[in-house]
């Protein structure tokens, strides 16, 4: 049967390069060895649904790990429209599952309402902050991960032009954009970033068209934060011979020759950790920030396309960010004010 039994995606979207030890155990741990935890965890996707190659899939993978390791039961509700979010939350809450994940910042207001309505229900939200004791807010420093791939892009480009394709002009996506731009600037002050928004997370054909145009305008490395639209980018890269940078998970399996590297955002890790805290009985509300410092975001290169020099540079910046040596911009204003620090 569908999601309940099968993995939502092939394990192709492998864990990031800097795989954590849990990952290793996840694959080994045979279910029968573990004492089965009698818990049900529910996840609600946004309208993108499962198969979005982005946070919905990634979140579902987090639950998959919990299922494999602890034998919990996972359930999913895919939202047909934005006004399903609230009712989907309440129907899970009413079913008294052990925790309800809302994947996406658009759950923000409806989750605040649901959390108030069901004070004893545990909730978690991805990519947004809901201030309530029974809600764990799982957020990511996308700007930091994007900064690193920006550095790599800046070093890779030979035309001094790189591209960025965003899904929609959400503040969240702008975090990718400006983090990336800052990284490019840090590595290559002469490089220009061409930026387009597809106004879609689905229209792969449009993604390909935009990528083609950016490439014609001279861009030879293009990064995307646009879900399915990015598939079009990778196709274009493969056909026309330039570099694409993947997002969220390692996307090199789509085109090992043409995906330079991927910016990693470990939604699965966030979901996993919060789920684990529920199992262990130490669930806590509040903000759970996943950043470079705790390996929640980063970059990966499963296909091995990066040069040592590039890896070295990226690692240098990564260390600096992890120690808080400087703050990566996440909005246009912050980017405009951004001075590349001496590291």
């Amino acid at each position, binding site marked *: 049967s569908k999601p309940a039994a099968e993995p939502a995606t092939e394990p192709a979207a492998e864990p990031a390069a800097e795989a954590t030890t849990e990952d290793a155990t996840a694959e080994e741990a045979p279910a029968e060895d573990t004492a089965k935890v009698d818990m049900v965890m529910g996840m609600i996707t946004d309208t993108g649904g499962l198969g979005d190659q982005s946070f919905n899939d990634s979140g579902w993978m987090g639950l998959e790990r919990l299922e494999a390791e602890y034998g919990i039961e996972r359930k999913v509700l895919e939202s047909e429209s934005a006004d399903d979010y609230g009712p989907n939350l309440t129907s899970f809450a009413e079913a008294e599952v052990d925790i309800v994940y809302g994947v996406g910042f658009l759950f923000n207001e409806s989750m605040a309402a649901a959390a108030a309505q069901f004070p004893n229900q545990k909730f978690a939200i991805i990519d947004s902050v809901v201030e309530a004791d029974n809600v764990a807010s799982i957020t990511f420093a996308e700007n930091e991960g994007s900064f690193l791939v920006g550095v790599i892009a800046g070093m890779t480009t030979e035309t001094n032009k790189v591209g960025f394709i965003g899904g929609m002009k959400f503040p969240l996506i702008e975090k990718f954009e400006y983090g990336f731009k800052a990284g490019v600037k840090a590595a290559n002050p002469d490089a220009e970033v061409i930026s387009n928004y597809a106004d879609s997370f689905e229209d*792969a054909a449009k993604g390909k*068209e935009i990528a*083609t145009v950016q490439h014609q305008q001279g861009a030879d490395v293009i990064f995307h934060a646009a879900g399915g639209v990015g598939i079009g980018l990778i196709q274009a890269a493969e056909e026309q011979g330039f570099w694409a940078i993947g997002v969220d998970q390692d996307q090199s399996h789509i085109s090992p020759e043409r995906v330079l590297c991927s910016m990693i955002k470990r939604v699965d890790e966030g979901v996993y950790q919060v789920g684990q805290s529920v199992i262990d009985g130490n669930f806590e509300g509040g903000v759970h920030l996943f950043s470079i410092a705790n390996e929640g975001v980063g970059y990966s290169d499963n296909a091995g396309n990066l040069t040592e020099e590039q890896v070295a540079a990226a690692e240098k910046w990564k260390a600096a960010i992890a120690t808080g040596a400087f703050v990566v911009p996440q909005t246009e204003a912050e980017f405009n004010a951004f001075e590349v620090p001496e590291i």
Partner: protein
Amino acid sequence: MLVIFIAIIASALRLATPLIFAALGSVFTERSGVVNIALEGIMIMGAFFAILAMEFVSNPWIAVLVAMIVGAITALLLGFLAINLKANQVVAGTAINILAGSLTAFLLEMVWHRSGQTDTVANALTKNPETLAFLEKIPVLGSLFSGLTPFVYLAIIFSGVSYYVMYKTPFGLRIRAVGEHPRAADTVGVNVYRVRHICVLISGALAGLAGASLSLGTVNMFREGMVSGKGFIAIAAAIFGKWHPLGAFAACLFFGLTEAIQIQAASLGLGWIPSEFLQMLPYIATVLALAGLVGRAVAPAASGEPYEKGHR
């Protein structure tokens, strides 16, 4: 500037291609008196089955053929409902749209065990065919051809062929007669049902081809939501082109062009316009063009009306 211009043209042609096939399909059915609102659904079917076929065959052209056949079969259902059962054509089409979206998602799940998208397939039809590689050597224009896919050429050819069929053959005369005045056609021995069925089948095959041109012709895979309204835009294009094959072709090109311009906005110095307004551009331009230039579009008189033998 010339480079940008050529890039925009190439872009427009690529973006217009799926629309052209589907719009031609719409022209055929509407001309014969059947409203095919199911183009969207049939495109989804075509896009999906083209990729599914690639699981079994290696020749992409066979996959294209499969898409066309699946499109035609889906259309057959519409034809059966609309022509034989005299069902409301819009209802039947809407049903097919709902069904196609769910059915492909369901099959995707069954075959690839995941939702969202299929695997990518090898040797798709996303590049300028090698037999036409010489075109790329033409100075200046060469870059235009290098960006075209076989589907683009097909779309142009099919537009011409459709025009010929519709206006230069006995069958075309019959199609138009059946759409205008089915009883008149019936009384001179034209089989109204058969003509309509054939046209619906043609439109299904064309919409299937439109779907294949999206999946096999752009991203080598099927994604849910990849058709996202293109079937409806194609219907609009057919109306815009006044149900004339070449008119529909031009209308699709117009849509493609406005979208291409929107993508190129930055290099055209339009980057300061908020992206949403650039997104609106194709649609606003269409409304203005309709209101200002094109005006009255008189539909084939019997379009949408089931024909019943032995009734008046």
